[in-house]
């Protein structure tokens, strides 16, 4: 059972026995990778153009926002906390960037101000979450729900209804390519590289230790509060990237755009093999989890499932994948 006291130490003490279960505990995303390839194969059969360049690029553009959000959520969950406000941050950044660019006009400087302001907003929102949870020691679930209400309120203040329009240059860059490589792929690679760099830092080890056993981490001198705060700031930053990607994708602002993404980001992280109890997991898994959610949508669409059945089948597949992943992870540990 999940509890702070019976935390599986697998990710740290893997080694010893080889085989599938051991490699699974060292690389918790292996199951997600298998599910991803199966779904991709089904998708390729149902949609012959799946592996063409254009379709792959447009799929990537559609999957990117949630994947970015899931990357950020991973860090918070590795520390055994949760961020239910990241969708609110997405909404806030999304409308703020659109409004700023509209106000400053169509110029590179205006884009730069908009993007910088968006990222700053994300960092600030993440910092507020982190201070409340890590330093004031508020309950993470209720606190991040409360801040998400505030962030969506601010988004509604900036833009009461979906609308606004960014200049074509802005969204053309998002949809464009450099030397034949789609920009969305470059963004994803850059974001993943950033996440992997973070995964090599002392912060990351301290974060996993905190998620594994907060009290023990504290005794060994880990600055627990600072580590948890940093995880929330990272989550806020990736939520801001997600908000920016949505500006590129939709070319307009919507104060409610992030609402449904919050729980999807948690789903993507868990699908990727990261344990909600903290400590065990990886960014790689969350990227796969984000793609899996997108591919499930694709497969249902191209299988010509009647409209009213789509939600149920999607829900059933996700529930099956979630429970299968959790059950396998446990078998690997036992």
């Amino acid at each position, binding site marked *: *059972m*999940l*509890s702070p006291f019976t935390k599986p130490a697998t990710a740290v003490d893997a080694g010893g026995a080889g085989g599938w279960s051991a490699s699974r505990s060292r690389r918790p995303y292996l199951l997600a990778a298998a599910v991803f390839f199966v779904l991709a194969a089904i998708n390729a059969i149902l949609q012959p153009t799946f592996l063409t360049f254009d379709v792959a690029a447009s799929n990537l553009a559609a999957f990117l926002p949630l994947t970015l959000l899931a990357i950020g959520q991973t860090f918070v969950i590795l520390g055994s906390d*949760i961020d239910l406000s990241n969708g609110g941050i997405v909404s806030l950044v999304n409308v703020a960037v659109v409004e700023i660019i509209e106000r400053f006009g169509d110029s590179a400087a205006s884009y730069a101000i908009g993007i910088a302001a968006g990222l700053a907003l994300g960092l600030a929102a993440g910092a507020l979450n982190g201070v*409340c949870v890590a330093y*004031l*020691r*508020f*309950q993470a*679930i*209720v*606190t991040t*729900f*409360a*801040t*998400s*209400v*505030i962030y*969506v*309120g*601010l988004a*509604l*203040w900036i833009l*009461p209804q979906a609308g606004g329009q960014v200049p074509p240059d802005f969204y053309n860059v998002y949809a464009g390519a450099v030397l034949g490589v789609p920009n969305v792929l470059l963004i994803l690679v850059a974001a993943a590289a950033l996440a992997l760099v973070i995964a090599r830092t002392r912060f990351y080890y301290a974060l996993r230790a905190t998620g594994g056993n*907060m*009290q023990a981490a*504290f*005794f060994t001198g880990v600055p*627990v509060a600072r580590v948890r705060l940093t995880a929330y700031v990272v989550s806020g930053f990736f939520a801001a990237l997600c908000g920016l990607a949505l500006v590129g994708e939709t070319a307009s602002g919507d104060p409610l755009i992030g609402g449904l993404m919050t*729980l999807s980001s*948690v*789903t993507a992280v*868990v699908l990727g093999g990261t344990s*909600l*109890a903290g400590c065990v997991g990886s960014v790689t898994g969350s990227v796969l989890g984000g793609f899996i959610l997108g591919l499930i949508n694709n497969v249902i669409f191209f299988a010509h499932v009647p*409209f*009213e*059945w*789509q*939600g*149920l*089948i*999607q*829900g*059933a597949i*996700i*529930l099956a994948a*979630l*429970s299968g992943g*959790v*059950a396998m992870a*446990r078998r690997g540990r036992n």
Partner: protein
Amino acid sequence: MLARLRAFLGRPLAIEAIAILALLAVGEALSPGFASPRQIVNQLIIAALLGVVAAGQNLVILCGQEGIDLSVGGIISFGAFLGGNLMQQNDANLPLALASVLAATFLIGLMNGAGVTLLRIPPLVMTLGMLGVVNGLLVVLTRGWPSGRAAPLLVEIVQPLALGLPGIVFIWLAVGVLMALALRRTTFGLNVYAIGANEEAARLAGVPVRRTRMLAFALSGLFSGISGLLLLGYTGNVFVGAGDQYMLPSIIAVVIGGTSLAGGSGAYWGTMAGAVFLVVLQSILTTLNIPPFGRQIIYGVVLLALMLFYGRQRRLRG
């Protein structure tokens, strides 16, 4: 004396009572008539809808192990839809409709419990997945167009019954009494506290941990179903996503009611007061002449401020 006063004021129920009275006073000052008996009854009706769901949520949270039920909103919508379609404005269909809704929602909750205890899926994940399935099922059943209407008898629950209070409030009070008896006077209730406080110790003492937790999830489904039926009586018909608005408030009502999210301590009286508080806060913000975004920001800030008093983690000490 001062110490005893401070101890009393530090209790969740006292904080809530004071906060509710303060809100009523502020509301009355800002808009005369806010604290009139009629308005208070209206707010109690809405609080009852939230309070009944929160009863199930309370049980699940008391069981500990990160217990939480995110599927309650979907189950409420499902219960209202199923009930409305089975009764179709006809009192003769009422018994069958009530029985079907209660059985179906209990079963959904039982599936949550089975996933959590037998497959050992974390509650947050299991109930989140179930939410997706139930919402998907609703779309299949409604084909996107909700239908179904309450039986006349069910609509009566919002009409005054006795002492100027409508039936729905008495139903809620009955739920409160039952919860108190179940938690304090039955084996099941004591088991809930035992596994929430220390699951390993409870297991060693012979408490049927799995069965208790499974029943808590099943009852959470059942209470959501009851809330769906009450909602159907309140609104008269069925609309899309009727239950969505109850998911997170049901958790917040439990938390500000003094139940620890870590499980093992808390009582339903606090949760009832928490539900009243949330409803009065919402309605005061609606009364105030400020735009929706301002209401939302104030609501969030008040929730955040409340966190100062409740369930803060213990300080780590070296």
